[in-house]
């Protein structure tokens, strides 16, 4: 039994989720594959978005996967770090914008 919740080697077993639900697993992987194809956005742009989201949802598997994916696409470390900051900025912005709610509530409750 692994003594941590996350094992890097589990990432390559991701496909096994289909074994317990073939239909849903296949639908998910088909969808996933389609999402990352070249489209209105380039596959390169999607890779950087995925990297940013991976950090926001704090998924260690996704961070490993999209760092490697970025390297494969020739994406530079500067581009990768900027995308992480985009994720971090949105995440901290999402916290801070609630400050407006706090201010309104404060004002409402105060004489």
């Amino acid at each position: 039994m692994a003594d941590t919740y996350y094992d890097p080697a589990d990432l390559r077993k991701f496909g096994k989720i289909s074994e317990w639900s073939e239909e849903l697993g296949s639908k998910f992987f088909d969808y996933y594959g389609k999402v990352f194809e070249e489209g209105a956005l380039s596959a390169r742009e999607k890779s950087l978005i995925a990297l940013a989201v991976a950090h926001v949802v704090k998924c260690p598997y996704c961070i490993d996967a999209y760092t490697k994916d970025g390297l494969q696409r020739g994406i530079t470390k500067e581009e990768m770090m900027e995308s992480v900051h985009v994720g971090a900025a949105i995440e901290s912005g999402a916290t801070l914008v609630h400050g407006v709610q706090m201010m309104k509530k404060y004002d409402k409750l105060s004489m």
Partner: protein
Amino acid sequence: MSTKSLKARHDVLAQSNKQLEILNGGLFEEGELPFFKDKIDAIGAYPLRPKKLEILQINVGYMCNQVCEHCHVDAGPDRKEIMTRETMELCLEVIRNTGAHTLDLTGGAPEMNPDFRWFVEQAAEAGIKDFIVRSNLTIIRANKKYYDLPQFFKKHNIHVISSMPHYTRGKTDKQRGDGVFDSSIKALQELNAVGYGMPDSDLRLDLVYNPSGAFLPGNQAALEADFKKALKQDFDIDFHKLFAITNLPIARFLDYLLASGNYEDYMYSLVEAYNPSAVAGVMCTNTISVSWDGWLYDCDFNQMLGLKVASKVKHLKDYNEEVLNDRDIVISQHCYGCTAGAGSSCQGTVA
């Protein structure tokens, strides 16, 4: 980065049998990953057999002015294996009579062979359609005696294929050594100046991209577009095609994978990316590789692993194309490198 070859360091990985032990053992021996043989047997491609011979690839020596971290040749300034003029004569006889349409000179840095120019002049007269020299670019700027190489290549209508791991300085120098990026840029500009790589020029200049680490190359066309844009914008450099080549787990790249703890993951990546439709186009089916001392191999990788052709004809002195073409190709687990994703060969993707 070490400035010496594995051989000069007396590293155990300088021995090809030790490399083969690693490639045949571990994950494969334990049944975690399938052997390449079984994988191609499943699609009826075992034993792998040659098609028509198209490319004669000659390695004129392992000496190089660089000691790149990923080099499967384990080349470097300390390597003394250099093709003699006598062996070149044997090559020329084959070149004059071969059915192959492409002659591909590689190394090491082929230009460092003292008889390189003589050999090129002689070989160019044989009238082979596509005459390639794999130049590492920095050699052109390494010493005054090499400064005129662009003109020399032009004179003999050589197709130049050069390594360029990235269009940024940091990634290039990390893989190939400090100063390599600037020197490569200067060399590319000089090749452009004599007409190489220009949009409508017949003087072919292609680049080779090898990933600078334990990951596979991405889409070749997308990488080519990125390289073209960046090199044009930043340095006004033109080139024709970009070949994305997968690093095979051999020699210094194998050493790097093991030392960095990436070997197992990398082998998983190669096996996962196995593309059955790439098998038919692997370069060993249309190429013969010749070593500095005249031995024959299915490819340059097999050459470095000491895996000679499985044929009665094993050396240039016994060369017979018909007999040679009737052979089974020697394979091992490094072959997954040529069937991963869109496939990989000295001419880029194959699938």
